[in-house]
């Protein structure tokens, strides 16, 4: 049994680090939902789009080359240069800000005061649009992303645990880095929201749109800023997942994984997104480890949802959500 127990600890640690990545995606949701009431289903696709753009810029791909070649019969693919990772990240961030501006200008400004379900639908429409656009711009093949993050087994942890337990834990360097970066990002976001001028304005908008307008906060600016922040979070998540498993369509499915995280943590709470992500990450890995072999495996697909569902029946607003008060 102790051997099982030690494996359990390893699974637990790995789950914890997966959970951090879930939190990262969920964080993007929470930011936008708090500030504008939009349930941004496109967050996952934004991560995919950001990662695709990053790879495209780094490799010097010609955007829409497939389309151009099909229309004009040409054979162009690459500009023939390579952009260093840091510059490509900055450029990609520029693209995400531009995207944020366009999304607000073209879609959500026209949908102010619509019921939430309509906004949700618009976000799904946006997800489809971005998915198609990303594939058209950069091609749908699986791409490798390498921005210089270390990968492979962490030998120090392996040796230390081997000496302690007689069994070396397998923990990926990339996961450690991702955890570190995510932690820094979360801390930065919290500090930004609590202490900076624009962060305060953002929280004011989240509290009450009209009151925020009346003290002179520009809703337009805040929304673009929030979408840009979500774009930045998406970019970071895209880099992490993209480095881990290649930039491909399945990247956009992490949005679906972030949903139970949100339900668990509450749609409006940043700490909720983090704690929820950790619980889901650890929970699904442990469940797969303990119960999975008994029922045929692949329980990770649904466990998070069922956990969140059962949890919500007892606490409908999530762990940290604001108490739902209903009046006639």
């Amino acid at each position, binding site marked *: 049994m102790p051997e099982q127990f030690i494996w359990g600890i390893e699974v637990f640690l790995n789950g914890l680090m997966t959970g951090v990545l879930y939190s990262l995606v969920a964080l993007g949701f929470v930011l936008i939902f708090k500030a504008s009431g939009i*349930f941004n289903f496109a967050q996952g696709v934004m991560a995919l789009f950001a990662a695709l753009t990053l790879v495209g810029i780094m490799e010097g791909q010609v955007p829409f080359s*497939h*389309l151009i070649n*099909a229309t004009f019969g040409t054979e162009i693919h690459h500009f023939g240069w390579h952009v260093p990772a840091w510059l490509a990240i900055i450029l990609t961030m520029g693209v995400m800000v531009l995207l944020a501006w366009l999304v607000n200008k*073209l*879609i959500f400004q*026209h*949908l102010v005061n*619509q019921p*939430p*379900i*309509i906004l*949700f*639908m*618009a976000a*799904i*429409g*946006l*997800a*489809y*649009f*971005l*998915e*198609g*656009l990303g*594939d*058209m711009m950069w091609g*749908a093949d699986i791409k490798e992303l390498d921005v210089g993050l270390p990968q492979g087994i962490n030998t120090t942890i392996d040796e230390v645990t081997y000496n302690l337990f007689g069994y070396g834990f397998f923990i990926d360097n990339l996961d450690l880095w991702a955890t570190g970066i995510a932690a820094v990002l979360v801390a930065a976001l919290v500090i930004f929201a609590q202490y900076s001028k624009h962060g305060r304005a953002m929280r004011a908008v989240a509290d009450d749109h009209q009151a925020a307008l009346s003290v002179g906060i520009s809703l337009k600016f805040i929304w673009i800023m929030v979408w840009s922040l979500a774009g930045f979070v998406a970019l970071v998540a895209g880099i992490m997942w993209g480095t881990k498993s290649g930039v491909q369509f399945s990247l956009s499915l992490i949005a*679906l994984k972030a*949903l*139970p995280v*949100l*339900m668990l943590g509450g*749609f409006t709470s940043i700490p909720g997104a983090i704690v929820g992500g950790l619980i889901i990450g650890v929970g699904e890995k442990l469940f797969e480890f303990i119960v999975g072999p008994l*029922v*045929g*495996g*692949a*329980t990770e*697909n*649904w466990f998070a*949802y*069922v956990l*969140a*569902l059962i949890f*919500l*029946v007892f606490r*409908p*607003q*999530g762990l940290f959500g604001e108490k*739902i008060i*209903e*009046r*006639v």
Partner: protein
Amino acid sequence: MFYREAGDFKTSYTEDSQTFPIKFDRYGYYVTLAVAFLVIPFIINDYWVNAVFMPFLIYSIAAIGLNILVGYCGQVSLGTGGFMAVGAYACYKLMTGFPDVSIAIHILLAGGITAAVGVLFGLPSLRIKGFYLAVATLAAQFFLVWLFNRVPWFYNYSASGQISAPERTLFGITVTGAETTAWAAYMFCLVFLVASAWIARNLTRGMAGRKWMAIRDMDIAAEIIGVNPLRAKLSAFAVSSFFIGIAGALFFAVYLGAVEVGEVFGINKSFLVLFMVIIGGLGSIFGSFAGAAFLVLLPVFLKNVLVGGLGWPTDLAAHLELVIVGGLIITFLVAEPHGLAQLWRVAKEKLRLWPFPH
């Protein structure tokens, strides 16, 4: 607007409350039915049935079902694909378990089983509301698909993990399996669609429908005026899942013939049907038809134009299709959030008054 026409006098309450109060609409309805039953079966071929009519008919049933839940009762569900899978697998198990019973009864029973499953997954709706519920229904989607994938009993221990429909006849005419003729499959689905639409229309304008709409508009207020939220919500889940289950059973047995659950009834199916309902118009039976027709025809149209007409590679056309579908959904929401049904209504009212609007 009070949708009546001068000179079209009603002399009894029954006449006054009929579904199509205006003569023109009524005749339009009869003509549509006559064309659907008496003309189309004689002129269609395999391509039209498989590419256009069957998906349209079946998705219409699913959209009507989902519209009852989302449009009339206000409970957003993303579990449609999972419930369609329940219908398909229930139908399969019944077809292989009781080969002597008529296929029509099997499909109705499959609807009934789906209704029971729907009620089970509808239970949390009593506590959970809004987006939380939408995400909670995803639990149904992923769990059901996983279940059908992993438990061999559901697919009769077949090696491929697929289910395929055995050949069945109705009144001596083959309706499932490879031998099915185009018109037979078409007629079979059409009968189910017309019956579903008729039932749904009459349910939604009766007491049940009014209760659902009261719950949709504000559930606490509805409770105060005497609507039992438990019964209203669960009955909406049951009726909705019943139709969706029938749609799933038809989709598997008549349309596809063989199904791999993850591919056919995945999360994308849930979104597709939800799009149909939203684009067509929430809370409108006609809207369900319009939305289904729109989203079935659009890809066929785009494929014919882009691949057939311009000679683009298919993968590029598929990407562009995503862009266009996404763009159209957004455009529709911005231009007319109440969907095609509302556009149609506005156009009709304008035309009735045209050219003298005042």
